[in-house]
């Protein structure tokens, strides 16, 4: 324990899924109240609130949340940062604590997507009667599908084949990632889908964007998650039971994509993940071999495979061998996405980066039930969104 450490003393997530009867603020309130209860604290103790949400980001959701759970005049930060939104909210609360402005903060991530479909961002094609150059590329028509694809499934498929062409990964090896995560999800009562698939079922399912078939793509959905954070000094004053269950944030790193030759046509998910991982390992004094579990950003099966390499979990270029070896399975040497991952647990964007902290913290506390990674002491979380933001956190158990 050092005086600069920041700790998670409360963590929660709602089930992920599609909840027509709950609005954004209902979900956020549930997660916030659960995290406060888990931390044995109340809103009057909270000195900063950071609220992460993507699709309704201009609706001052943090203040709307306060109206549901307690208005105390504290600073509220409404945060949006692609798929790293929730993790960024955590960092904002951490920075407020690290700066000495407060010693207890609440970070909440929430999203309500419903069934918006895999191509989420795609707008209906408009019919123009006169070609007029538009936008930064002087486009006279919508170019998606004409000049290649830049929709999410296509971007992550191409990220996968780039690695595959370089290192000889097969479509079957990519599919094994989905086989693993869907199998893991069966043990997670909070997951959106809890159905196991055979490798053949995954390979033979509808192709969305080769090599990713439908079970290799994460669903859209609703959900929220929250954490309560304290300074080291504050932790020392708390109840022994709170201290026993506290989880140390040994590293918290946020990066954006550095310039690459290709990033203007194909958003990069690799360089910034490597940058974040290396900084986090350095900061925590922990190496990839020390990790008992990893929750990483498997928005598509192809992405998870790349991140084995980006997070240094495997030999350089060896991500295909890594999945073949069984290492990232729950009983393997480096369990990855024992929650079911985004592929089956779900991916309500703003909630994702806090939900993976919840997952790892729950294992480090030894409270993960049927899916518990036995004796877990150290874990890593990773999120990356286009184009591009990445967050890596390394967590350690209290004792």
């Amino acid at each position, binding site marked *: 324990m050092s005086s600069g450490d920041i700790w998670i003393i409360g963590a929660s997530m709602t089930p992920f899924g599609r909840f027509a009867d709950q609005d954004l603020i209902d979900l956020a309130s549930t997660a916030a109240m659960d995290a406060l209860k888990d931390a044995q604290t109340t809103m009057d103790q909270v000195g900063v609130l950071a609220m992460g949400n993507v699709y309704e980001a201009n609706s001052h959701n943090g203040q709307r949340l306060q109206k549901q759970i307690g208005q105390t005049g504290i600073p509220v930060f409404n945060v949006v940062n692609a798929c790293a939104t929730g993790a960024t909210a955590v960092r904002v609360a951490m920075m407020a604590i690290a700066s000495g402005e407060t010693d207890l903060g609440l970070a909440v991530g929430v999203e309500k997507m419903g069934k918006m479909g895999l191509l989420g961002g795609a707008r209906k094609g408009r019919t123009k009667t006169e*070609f007029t*150059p538009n936008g930064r590329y002087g486009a006279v028509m919508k*170019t998606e599908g004409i000049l290649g694809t830049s929709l999410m499934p296509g971007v992550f498929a191409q990220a996968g084949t780039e690695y595959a062409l370089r290192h000889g990964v097969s479509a079957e090896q990519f599919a094994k990632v989905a086989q693993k995560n869907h199998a893991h999800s069966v043990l997670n009562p909070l997951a959106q889908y809890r159905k196991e698939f055979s490798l053949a079922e995954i390979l033979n399912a*509808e192709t969305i964007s080769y090599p990713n078939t439908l079970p290799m793509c994460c669903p859209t959905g609703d959900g929220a998650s929250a954490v309560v954070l304290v300074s080291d000094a504050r932790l020392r004053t708390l109840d022994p039971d709170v201290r026993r269950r506290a989880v140390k944030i040994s590293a918290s790193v946020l990066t954006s994509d550095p310039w690459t*030759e290709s990033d203007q046509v194909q958003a990069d998910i690799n360089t910034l993940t490597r940058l974040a991982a290396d900084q986090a390992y350095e900061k925590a004094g922990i190496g990839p071999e020390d990790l008992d579990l990893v929750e990483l950003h498997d928005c598509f099966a192809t992405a998870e495979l790349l991140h084995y390499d980006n997070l240094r979990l495997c030999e350089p270029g060896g991500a295909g061998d890594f999945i073949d070896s069984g290492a990232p399975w729950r009983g393997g040497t480096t369990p990855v996405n024992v929650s079911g991952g985004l592929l089956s647990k779900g991916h309500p964007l703003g909630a994702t980066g806090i939900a993976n902290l919840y997952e790892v913290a729950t294992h480090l506390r030894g409270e993960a039930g049927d899916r518990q990674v036995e004796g877990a002491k150290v874990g890593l979380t990773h999120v990356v969104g286009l184009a591009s933001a990445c967050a890596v956190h390394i967590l350690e158990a209290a004792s």
Partner: protein
Amino acid sequence: MEANALTAASPAVNDPSGTPTRVPVVDYLVLDEQPYIQAQCCNACGALYFDRRNACARCFATEFSPRRLAGTGKVRAFTVVHRAAPNIPAPYMSVVVDLDGGGVIKSNLLGVTDPQQIKAGQRIKLETFTAGVDDDGTEAIAFGYKMDGDEL
């Protein structure tokens, strides 16, 4: 040269005989007799951009000049899109291409939908086609790539 000179890079091609006007689907496609891709090149470090930049994202220099990129290159990444955007026929193949002599670009690989046909280092070459015609009869000319078997 100023970065915004790019807007003048690809004017509509007017034929005095009255045949339909052709416009490039994006302004980094130049419709010469032999169409080509043109980028803005950072005078200091050589980084290439298809849109205008206030400073180079790589080295922060502020001077750019237009540069003609090669019409040939190698497939760097690909996907076969089955669930496509509205009004886009599927399946089709999207490729990210390493152009000979520098530059990375994305477009469709025309006439191929079998992923097994793409091997590491697959060579491709530029091809233009009409992507649409507006009510005035103006044709929008797009670019894609074709397999370049001879040089494989």
